[in-house]
């Protein structure tokens, strides 16, 4: 294992466009800008939460990091090595160190393999635990809170929460340094969701695994993450320490997102509630300038917002937002 300095994952100006094809010849008529210039680091053992609504590009970002989707441009470095230029042998080595846990474990498990075989398959692919496979499968089941006899059962015999534990066991089989968790609990009921979140958190801390935790639920992301990045229309609009982003959100979109989360303890109709107008724009035709300006309710919003895409600017240490009206260089708004 390489324990050099610097972040484990380093992403710069990552872009992924999906071409829109029309007609019999599949002429390219445009592009969906799913990920449109995203930069961030994930430190060793750190959890970065990636939050955003559907179409924000968070899932594409996560998959591109592992080259499950090819990037259009930009750079991804894993432990100092460029992921975009890896050949097949290098990619195989990458997958021994970087894994993914999907939202729907049922869709990612082969229904004809017992759970034990599904875990052993990962060990075989990477030639791990030779000669002590069964023992290692039992260990992995134990780590995720399942019992050895579960190894002989098929995916359909498990509940959703248990299947997600199997998905986690498969990801852990290679002893990864990094896991992308893509909405790992959004298909689960509240009581089961808490079990899986606690499991992920304790494993990640105990084993020192770095994590990109992707979810649409801000509370879940807050619970899991050291830092949070908020995505809107293919771009990161705010990034910073989890506590700071939640307590002092800077970008108007982050504020609206936080305000939209229904909360048990606050009761009905919070007076300060921000209800966003409209809907997320079409990522094939993003608005000019700030991607959020058509829905933004910032008191200083003006024509300037439509001119250029605002850069991410650091306000408090480690906490950056892409809003020219909240820029630390701009005049403070008169309240």
């Amino acid at each position, binding site marked *: 294992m390489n324990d050099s300095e610097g972040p484990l994952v380093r992403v710069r100006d990552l872009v992924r466009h999906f071409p829109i094809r029309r007609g019999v010849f599949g002429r390219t008529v445009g592009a969906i800008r799913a990920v449109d210039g995203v930069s961030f680091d994930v430190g060793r053992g750190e959890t970065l939460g990636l939050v955003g609504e559907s179409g924000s590009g968070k899932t594409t970002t996560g998959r591109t990091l592992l080259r499950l989707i090819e990037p259009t441009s930009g750079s991804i470095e894993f432990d100092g090595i460029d992921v975009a230029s890896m050949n097949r042998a290098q990619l195989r080595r990458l997958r021994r160190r970087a894994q993914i846990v999907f939202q729907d474990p049922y869709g990612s498990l082969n229904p004809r393999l017992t759970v034990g075989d599904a875990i052993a398959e990962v060990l075989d692919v990477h030639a791990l635990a030779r000669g002590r496979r069964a023992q290692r499968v039992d260990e992995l089941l134990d780590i995720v809170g399942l019992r050895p006899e579960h190894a002989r059962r098929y995916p359909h015999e498990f509940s959703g929460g248990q299947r997600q534990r199997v998905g986690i066991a498969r990801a852990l089989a290679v002893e990864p340094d990094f896991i992308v968790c893509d909405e790992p609990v959004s298909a689960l009921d509240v*009581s089961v969701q808490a*079990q899986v979140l*606690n499991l992920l*958190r304790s494993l990640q801390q105990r084993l020192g695994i770095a994590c990109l935790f992707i979810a649409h639920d*801000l509370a879940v992301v807050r619970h899991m993450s050291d830092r949070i990045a908020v995505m809107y229309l293919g771009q990161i609009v705010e990034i910073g320490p989890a506590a700071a982003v*939640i307590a002092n959100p800077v970008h108007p979109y982050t504020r*609206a997102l936080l305000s*939209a989360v229904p909360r048990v303890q606050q*009761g009905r109709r919070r007076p300060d509630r921000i209800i966003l107008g409209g809907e997320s724009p079409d990522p094939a035709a993003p608005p000019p300038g700030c991607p959020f300006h058509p829905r933004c309710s910032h008191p200083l919003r003006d024509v300037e917002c439509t001119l250029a895409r605002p850069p991410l600017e650091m306000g408090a240490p480690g906490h950056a937002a892409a809003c020219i009206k909240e820029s630390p260089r701009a005049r403070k708004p008169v309240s």
Partner: protein
Amino acid sequence: MTVRAKVPAAGPLLEVSNLTTVFHTEAGEARAVDGVSFSVDAGETLGIVGESGCGKSVTSLSIMRLVPEPTGRIVEGSSIVFRGRQLLSLDSAEMRGVRGNDIAMIFQEPMTSLNPVHTVGAQIAETIRHHRRTTRREARDRAVEMMRLVGIPSPADRARDYPHQLSGGQRQRVMIAIALACDPDLLIADEPTTALDVTIQAQILELLADLRQKLGMALILITHDLGVVAEVCDRVAVMYAGRIVEEGPVSRLFEDPRHPYTQGLLRAIPRVDSTSTRLEVIAGQVPSATEWPAGCRFHPRCPMAWDRCAREEPGLIQVGQGRRSRCWLEAEPERRDHARRIVAHDPGGSDRGPVR
């Protein structure tokens, strides 16, 4: 709590008693809803909350008499009285009159409820003409008016769109327009915002609350999301394993939950403003409807359970005004104090959710 309808109060609008709905499955008879009783007053909003498999959706399908037969069946002895009429003894023609006119329903996934080959305007107009004697022209005008009411911009143009041309949020608005087209007294919304993004969910919940106030209709909101209930409802019924386990006014029930299941659920939700690193969990899994546990159905997962809970099932015990809890702790309150003392000595003891 705040808004009450103008309709004179002569008993509740809807009274469900001892509702039991069973399904025949390969694994045996599933008692999906098992002796559920509640009522809804005119203009009131009741939340029915619970996890998957608790029976909340089957409850709403039963009220609409939409339980798929012959696999599913409402058992004799159940009663659903709407405005003094026993819905379970209506024939299918009479029941069709009730649906839409008196009680309307919206579902989680509007795309599957809309017809993909007709414009949304035509679908709203069709509903109106089905229930009211109007000309095509009047129905079409009313459809546009309904679309304006549910906040669809340039409704006259959008009325000519097909469902796939609209976003998820707009489609749900269309479903609400269809549901409200004939002025129902009761709207049942089954997970209406679950498929939507959180900022769109906020818009739809705001819309439902506004419409309810404007039109004075009652609302039953079925959801797994306690936060949604807290923001929209007057009263809430918590369901577990086919039964209501706790019921009461929303603010008091969430401030001071009585039933260990409700307490567990509230503690298991991650909160945006919380800094704790561990969530409390409810151990184990929701049981299957073909084999509900004997005694209290929550006792195998309950941190407070004692031998009585495994033997006898508690009824819904009155706890203060308008509040009920199905728990023996209400009959033996000294046990709650005892349990509190143990917890105080062993904080965070049992959070490693065992898997069954």
